[in-house]
């Protein structure tokens, strides 16, 4: 059985499990899983698109040979768009704290009604999706067209668009974090949550790009991508383990120090009972293990090391979103066959999506005028 058939089988079993979860009637749990996985796919796609835009923004050369891989990972955003629109159905069950009728009685929630109301929420989601798809079109579709035209004017256009994208990215990632994570418990607020999600998204995006590039390389399709290029992917991933930990700890420490009831309850929930083990596992898998695994110079360019660290980071990113969202249900650590089915369906579909993207077009942006120079990149 080919790997592709196996993936399809896994996704199919997952789909049956997901359908069974929906049918058994635990709507809250079903939608919490759905939102976690939509965010997982969306943040990976956004992280990859961020790397593409970063190349144009800072006129980077090294990343040109892996840019097509990043663009393929960013194409997950096309898959995310319908899934996110379906996720709007979760509003009455998962977001009842501000959608439900009791919102009017909670003064802190009622005061936020200008932001937290269903029509504006839907409009915000549609605007975010539009911004992402438009950016994907400018960067990735334009880059694919360049393969045949070899037109350097595309690079000029992309460089002009990169600052615009950075602005859109900052706003939309913050909106994503506030709308789909903070608003589960609308009394709570943290200004830095958008940056926190960005840190996790970029790490996960880099991990997915590294994994996809290594998988192509293992099949002999990216022979010119050397460990010098991989080193930069590993180096950025290493840097962002620290950035993620810095932001995560900064948010925690300020709330811990101030000890204000309207802030600290959120963390108390997330370190109570079994969630403490999840939080410690998150610190271990999202920071400590990747940090020490990538700390030496050789490790950052070592394909085997990079591969397992990337898998770990993607898993830790799921754990991060799970830890952010599931405690809001107030039901303890839920992890059993519904969560596993969702993982099989969504991770499997994501992989199938990328496998399909891999079959189309060139593996490197062959029309990019900087490709030859980028292939000569050395540390």
């Amino acid at each position, binding site marked *: 059985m080919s790997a592709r058939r196996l993936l399809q089988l896994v996704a199919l079993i997952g789909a049956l499990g997901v359908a069974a979860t929906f049918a058994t009637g635990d709507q809250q749990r079903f939608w919490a899983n759905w939102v976690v996985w939509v965010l997982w796919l969306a943040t990976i796609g956004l992280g990859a698109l961020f790397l593409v835009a970063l190349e144009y923004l800072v006129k980077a050369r090294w990343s040109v040979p892996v840019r097509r891989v990043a663009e393929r990972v960013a194409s997950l955003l096309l898959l995310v768009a319908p899934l996110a629109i379906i996720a709007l159905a979760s509003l009455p069950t998962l977001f009842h704290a501000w959608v439900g009728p009791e919102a009017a009685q909670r003064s802190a929630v009622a005061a936020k009604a200008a932001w937290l109301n269903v029509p504006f929420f839907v409009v915000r989601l549609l605007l975010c999706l539009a911004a992402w798809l438009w950016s994907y079109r400018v960067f990735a579709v334009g880059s694919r067209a360049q393969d045949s035209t070899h037109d350097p004017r595309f690079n000029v256009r992309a460089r002009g668009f990169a600052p615009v994208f950075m602005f859109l990215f900052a706003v939309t990632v913050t909106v994503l974090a506030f709308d789909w994570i903070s608003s589960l418990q609308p009394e709570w607020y943290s200004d830095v949550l958008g940056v926190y999600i960005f840190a996790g998204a970029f790490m996960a995006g880099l991990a997915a790009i590294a994994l996809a590039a290594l998988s192509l390389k293992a099949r002999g399709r990216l022979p010119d991508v050397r460990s010098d290029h991989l080193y930069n992917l590993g180096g950025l991933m290493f840097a962002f383990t620290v950035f993620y930990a*810095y932001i995560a*700890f900064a948010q*925690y*420490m300020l709330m*811990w*120090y101030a*000890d204000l009831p309207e802030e600290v309850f959120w963390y108390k929930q997330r370190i109570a009972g079994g969630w403490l083990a999840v939080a410690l596992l998150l610190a271990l898998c999202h920071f400590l293990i990747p940090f020490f695994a990538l*700390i*030496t*110079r050789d490790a950052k360019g070592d394909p085997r090391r990079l591969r397992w660290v990337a898998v770990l980071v993607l898993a830790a990113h799921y754990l991060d979103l799970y830890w952010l969202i599931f405690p809001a249900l107030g039901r303890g650590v839920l992890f059993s066959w519904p969560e596993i089915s969702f993982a099989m369906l969504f991770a499997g579909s994501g992989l199938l999506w990328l496998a399909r993207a891999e079959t189309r077009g060139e593996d490197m942006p062959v029309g990019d005028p900087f490709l030859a120079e980028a292939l000569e990149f*050395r540390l």
Partner: protein
Amino acid sequence: MPEQAFAVVGFFENADALVRAASSLRGSGLGHVEGYTPYPVHGLASALRLRRSPLGGMVLVMGVLGALTAILFQWWANGIDYPTVTGGKALFSWEAFVPVMFEVTVAFATFTAGVGMLVLLNRLPFFAHPLLSSPAMAQITRDRLALAIEAERSAALDVEPARAALISAGALACEVVPYPVPLPRLAAATLGRLAASIGAACLVSGVLMYWSVKLFPVLPPMVKMLDQPRLDAQHGNSFFADGRVDQLPAPGTVARGFLPYDVASAEEAQLLANPLPRTPEVMAAGRRVYRTYCLVCHGALATGDPLLSKAYGAKPANMQSPAIRAFPDGHYYDVIMRGKNAMPSYAAELSADERWAAIHYVRALQRAQNAPDEDLR
């Protein structure tokens, strides 16, 4: 003394020739092989078998040490040496220590990287590498690629075999670089002049700064400690209706430690009971109060006839008299509070506990002078 050769430098046509020659010369045993190029040549480092810099490991070790230093020091300072509770947190609150740990880790790591690179690995202070003053260096910094066979451990280099090896490895031309003539006195004089210049610059700028700040005060004097948003006693104030700072306390205010004595008459006072137990500590406190305030008039035995009283013709009460011994404790307390005849009030001098303790002590004195037979058995 004839000039000793430090190195033979060979120039090569291109980077490939350089790298090939580097690998062939490395094991020749003629001396230390070093490459000099105007730009980084890929592959040269591995051809020369340059050892991987140990700086990374040093930085890691010192970074971990920095983190440990910071957390142990904060734990010792905040939890042990001078325990300080901040914001109701525990004495050892690792969360609060993390920012300092982070900064100290970074400080240790960066200082190790900087100092280790300059001093340990590049052996500063090191005025000049002999090659820097050679004619070869002028070409190398422009467009020539060179390999040098250098003398090891300050020994003289055997020039001819080195030259022959370089030529056979493909060098286009060779140049012999001598050890530089040592100029210790010049170096000492230069250092002296440098130190003197720095000292003079510090002195001049310090004096200039002192007088310029004194003569042209740009900043107003620092009066932040003086200008406080507070009201001074005996000053006016627009906040209260009567325009005064000094306000009477609210009606019914009781000052801490000064419970009011609201007993109307001596008869009512007789009902007061002594709240203190008769313990050795209370007795000791009572004796201290008695000896300080009471003894001068009432005498060591409470008989009311010490020498001082006689000298002034006063007649303090004899507390051993049957009439006074019969009074309850409350009566004594009332007398101490209000005074009696010539005796002034001791309300201001003593606290309630001190008064009651003194009364216990007076009772003990009375019992000692009028002990029943059982006490003596």
